[in-house]
Each structure stands twice: as C-alpha cells, then as structure tokens.
C-alpha cells in the first residue's frame, strides 16, 4: 500500500513538474504570436493586430511568471521562495488581462450585440460564488476564453477559413482544460487529461505562426 501511495505521490509530483514546464511552452507560443502580430502592426497599422499582440504579451508574461512560481515552489529555481505569492497573483492577473484583450478584440470587431449580452449574463453565476482571488481570476480567464471561442466560431461562420476553426478548437481545448482544473483538479487521471488538453490547445494556437513563417515571402517591413 505504501509503495502504491509513494508511486502516486511521485506521479503527482511529475505532473506538477510537467504542468509548470507547460507554462514555459505556453509563454513561447504566446510570445511567438505576439511577435508576428507586432510585425503585422508595423506593416499594416492594424488595431486588431495591436490588440492581439497586447493580449499575447500579457499571456506570455503571465505564463512565464506562473512557470517561475511553479519551479520556485518545487525549489527547482532558487531565490523565488519569498515572492512566490506575488509571482502567482501577478501571473494570474496578467493571464486574465491577456484573455480579456483576446475577448476585447472580438468585442470591438462585432461591437456590443446580443451574443455579448448573453455571455455577460452567465458571468455572475461563475464568478461571484468563488472565494479566493486565485479562483476569481481563473474563473474570469475561463469566461474570457469561452467568449473568445464563441466569437471565433461566429467568425468562422462568416469567413469559412479552416484556420479560424482550428483556432476555435484550440481555444476550446484550453477552455475545457481550464474547466476541468477548476472543478476536478484533485483526480490524477483528470489532471493528466486537462494537461493534455491545454498542451494540444497551445500547439494548435501555434499553427498560424508556423503557417505565417513558412509562407512569408514579402519583403515589406512597413510602416505604410
């Protein structure tokens, strides 16, 4: 029994390690998207791309701080023990701000309409009955991702671009992973499932960056 318990403990610690490593993968993906978006802002002076760049800079920094927090709490990264709570809260605030900007880009794109009103109506049900700041920020992030998923799906119904559907599915996987971590984080199996969902979701978000990098032929470096 003790050996089984020990193995489970090791597996759980391995999962925590993997989850924290995933934060750095998330930061890499987010910064890559931010860089491409910023290049787009320079070339086309597009405000949509500026909001996208801002969203992913916030997300990337948030992921980075949470990764440092995770490794700091496992004593892998020394010197961060004192400021662990600050790191975690800052990371979560930045991540929530990132998801807010991602949703905000869509809000400006479609303006305030019925869909936005319906989503706002659901929000208090999720956020108000939670206690700690961490859970509130996580709930807000989940809400903003969900809004992003809905708007991206609506955008797909307009433009029929397969990449839009891909991004919607990537965001859906991340949102589902968040939801599982919100409601059932303690089970080992569900922890693995939610980790895989977030990982696959992040890889999917990276596809437009790869497509852009491989098809980029223009020598234009802006500004207009």
């Amino acid at each position, binding site marked *: 029994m003790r050996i089984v318990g020990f193995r489970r403990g090791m597996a759980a610690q391995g999962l925590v390690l993997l989850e924290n490593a995933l934060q750095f993968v998330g930061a890499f993906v987010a910064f890559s998207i931010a860089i491409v978006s910023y290049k787009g802002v320079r070339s*086309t002076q597009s405000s949509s791309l500026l909001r996208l760049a801002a969203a992913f800079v916030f997300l990337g920094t948030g992921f980075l701080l949470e990764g440092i927090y995770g490794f700091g709490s496992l004593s892998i990264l020394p010197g961060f023990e004192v400021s662990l709570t600050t790191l975690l809260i800052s990371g979560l605030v930045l991540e929530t701000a990132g998801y807010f900007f991602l949703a905000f880009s869509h809000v400006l794109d479609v303006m305030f309409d019925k869909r936005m009103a319906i989503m706002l109506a659901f929000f208090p049900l999720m956020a108000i009955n939670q206690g700690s700041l961490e859970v509130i920020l996580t709930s807000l992030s989940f809400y903003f991702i969900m809004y992003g998923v809905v708007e991206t799906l609506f955008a797909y119904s307009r433009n029929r*671009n397969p990449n839009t559907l891909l991004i919607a599915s990537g965001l859906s996987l991340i949102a589902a992973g968040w939801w599982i971590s919100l409601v059932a984080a303690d089970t080992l199996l569900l922890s693995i499932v939610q980790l895989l969902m977030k990982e696959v979701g992040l890889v999917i978000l990276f596809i437009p960056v790869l497509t*852009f990098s491989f098809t980029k032929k223009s020598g234009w470096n802006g500004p207009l």
Partner: protein
Amino acid sequence: MAPYRTQTKIIADILLTARDMNMEGDGVGITTLLRKGNVSYSRMTKLIGDLVGAGLLLELNLDKTAKYKISEKGMSFLQAYLQFEDFAQSFGLRL
C-alpha cells in the same frame, strides 16, 4: 450592413484593383478604381496622391488621361497585407 473598412483595408482594395484589373498592362483609370474601391471621388483622388507619393502606385500619363499601375513596392505591401489578413482571420479578427 457592410463591415467597417479601415484606411489600410481601403488602400489594399485600391492596390488589389490596380493589380487585378490591369489586363492590358497599361494601368487602370480612376473610374475603375472608384467603382471597385467604393469611396468618394475626392477621397479617392487624395488616396491615389498619397499612394503615388509613397511609391505604391505608378502614375502613367497616356493619351492625356492618368492611369495607375501597382509598383513593386505596392506588390510587396499587398503581399504582406494579405498574409497578415490571413493571420488575423485565423484568430477570427479583421485587419
């Protein structure tokens, strides 16, 4: 309702028209640009002036009528614009 077009989108539309409607290779007239660009005459003349000044459009004076042709620089901008448009579209956004 037609979606709101940014200044950059209008410029890209003008350049696309100059590229795609230039069948005979001697440029396109302002009437074609107006019809496809869907902006007022006064705004179009100002935009064309800006684009010629920036080197994105070439002005050809044939038979006393001004015709416009997309330049290499214009092609480069248009290519970049279309790539970034596709990138933004992936995230469900418009440029």
